[in-house]
């Protein structure tokens, strides 16, 4: 075990995997000498050279497309997008090319591509640099969607992503990069996709959250514990594939569900979970499943406004109590 930041956990896995398999390479903006604007590729070019650690022009569509092509041609590229908001610039290559190539070509191709980058609030980056976009990639079939909330999860899941022969969208969170976590040192440490993590056990209400909202949900759980309410916090970790079973098992126990995410509430992935749980665990529900998410407005720059637009710990507490009719 080592104590390291979320960003370093990611960096170390990239380095280990590049050492292990010469087909792995990484390209993105500012990843070479600068080491990425969040430090996720710090000094990697020194060890692996500038062929395998490539700065790219600001051409998200071309970079992602090149990633698809290189993957088709037998390499294992990692494409770093500086902000996952920029997936919008490369949408055709992600949703039409990467997601569909294997299927549409009758299963002949393998696209071992990882598209990774950070998202979310926390740096005053305003509307086009603070979004949470993972829902969109859950919706279009053909992409795996991963959202690690801790350094250990990031390490274990990234390794799995790099070794996966499918296109993986890997969503990191900007506010987590500098947070220190305990991370296993084992260079084979992998967390399988489709395995949710119960971050806190409880018996009264199930709260499902991802990325930054895992820590907020845990904070809410602490507060609620003081009032005698026992909250179980589950981090799905991967939205595709989704471990619904763990959530169902929890809701059968508690009878109550609150999903909280940073993505917009309307048609956010919380709605998908709520609907699936209602289908799978209806007789066990004591209250309708509730969802919390960002309001239906672009995320404003002003911190007070940003807080007003996104769910706060108070909101989680209130929602939990609402499911208890308190």
């Amino acid at each position, binding site marked *: 075990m080592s104590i390291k930041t979320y960003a370093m956990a990611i960096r170390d896995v990239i380095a280990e995997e590049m050492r292990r398999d010469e087909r792995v390479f990484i390209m993105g903006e500012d990843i070479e000498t600068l080491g990425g604007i969040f430090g996720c590729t710090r000094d990697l070019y020194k060890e692996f050279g500038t062929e395998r650690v490539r700065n790219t022009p600001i051409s998200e569509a071309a970079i992602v497309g*090149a990633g698809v*092509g290189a993957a088709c041609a037998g390499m294992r590229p990692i494409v770093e997008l500086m902000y996952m908001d920029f997936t919008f610039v490369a949408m055709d290559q992600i949703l039409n090319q990467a997601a569909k190539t294997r299927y549409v*070509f009758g299963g002949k191709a393998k696209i071992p591509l990882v598209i990774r980058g950070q998202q979310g609030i926390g740096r005053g980056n305003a509307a086009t640099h603070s979004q949470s976009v993972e829902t969109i990639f859950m919706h279009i079939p053909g992409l795996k969607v991963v959202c690690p909330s801790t350094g250990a999860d990031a390490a274990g899941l990234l390794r799995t992503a790099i070794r996966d022969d499918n296109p993986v969208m890997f969503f990191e969170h900007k506010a987590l990069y500098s947070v220190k976590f305990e991370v296993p040192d084992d260079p084979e440490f992998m967390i399988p996709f489709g395995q949710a993590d119960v971050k806190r056990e409880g018996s009264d209400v199930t709260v499902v959250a991802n990325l930054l909202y895992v820590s907020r949900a845990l904070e809410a759980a602490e507060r609620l514990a003081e009032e005698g309410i026992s909250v179980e916090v589950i981090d799905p970790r991967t939205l595709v594939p989704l471990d619904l079973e763990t959530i169902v098992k929890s809701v059968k126990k508690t009878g109550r569900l609150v999903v909280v995410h940073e993505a917009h509430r309307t048609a956010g992935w919380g709605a998908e979970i709520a609907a699936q749980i209602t289908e799978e665990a209806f007789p066990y529900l004591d209250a309708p499943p509730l969802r919390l998410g960002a309001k239906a407005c672009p995320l404003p720059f002003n911190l007070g406004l940003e807080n007003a637009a996104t769910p706060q710990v108070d909101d989680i507490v209130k929602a939990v109590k609402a499911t208890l009719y308190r």
Partner: protein
Amino acid sequence: MISTERQLWIYDVMNKIRCFELKAFQLFQENKLRGSVHLYVGEEAVAATVCSLLRDEDYITSTHRGHGHCIAKGAQLDKAMAELMGKATGYCKGRSGSMHIADFTKGNLGANAIVGGGIPIAVGAALAAKLRGSDQVAVSFFGDGASNQGIFHESLNLAAVWKLPIIFVCENNGFGISVPTWQSTAVEDISVRAQGYNMPGYTVDGNDVYAIYEVMEKAIERAKAGLGPTLIECKTYRYLGHWTGDPQPYRTREEIEDWKQNRDPIKRMRKRMLEEGVTTAEKLDEIERLALEEAEKAAEFALNSPEPDPSTLMEDVFYEGV
């Protein structure tokens, strides 16, 4: 200079493409093809000539008008036709239809329904080759319309700055569906754009096998020497509409006839080969006959092939194997 063998190969491929396309057209008119097909009739020289210089391990990506490239890159006519009909025996198990035909074993990374969608993918394949240190090259086929897409510009720049072993082949057939190039494109010769990306650009007669061959040879040499990409514009013409069913109000019958009669690539090659004594008329007739036969057999194969089993619907979304 093109070897006799290679010339015959090119002639053969052009005929196969022509017969296949016309057969597909016939099947479409008989309502035996679903959706629409975008036929390559008249443009055969480009695909055949370019691909004659490529090996199986070299890569291509192509366009919605991709049957020609597919066949030129080694596809079997029957499996291709079966794919057009969405049958289980098609190259893509009926999943892709006309516009996504691919055969990864022959380096064909797929036709692409998104205009320009395949360009960066070919760049990526070239990148892979470079990283591996192999002498593979990649060719990106695209049309005049695609040269106005942002992705075209990003891809050329990226390939140039990284000196990737790729040849960008623009098939300028004068139209983007109904819009003539003079109406959509700021330059007359698309090859001019190569200057913006610091790579050589050529404009050639896309219906002249020999002209294409000459520049293509150079471009491949350059690529394998690690000097980077080349942009080759082949000016050509499609005889049929943009898609089967296109009423073509945007051009005249006279124009089409002119190209068909006076500039047809197959006719021209036949003429030249006979003039230069490369081969006999009988040989060429034989090639033409066999091509027609093969196209007929392909259609029969496709018509008799089974539909895909609905239970296979969810297969291959992800690769689940080891």
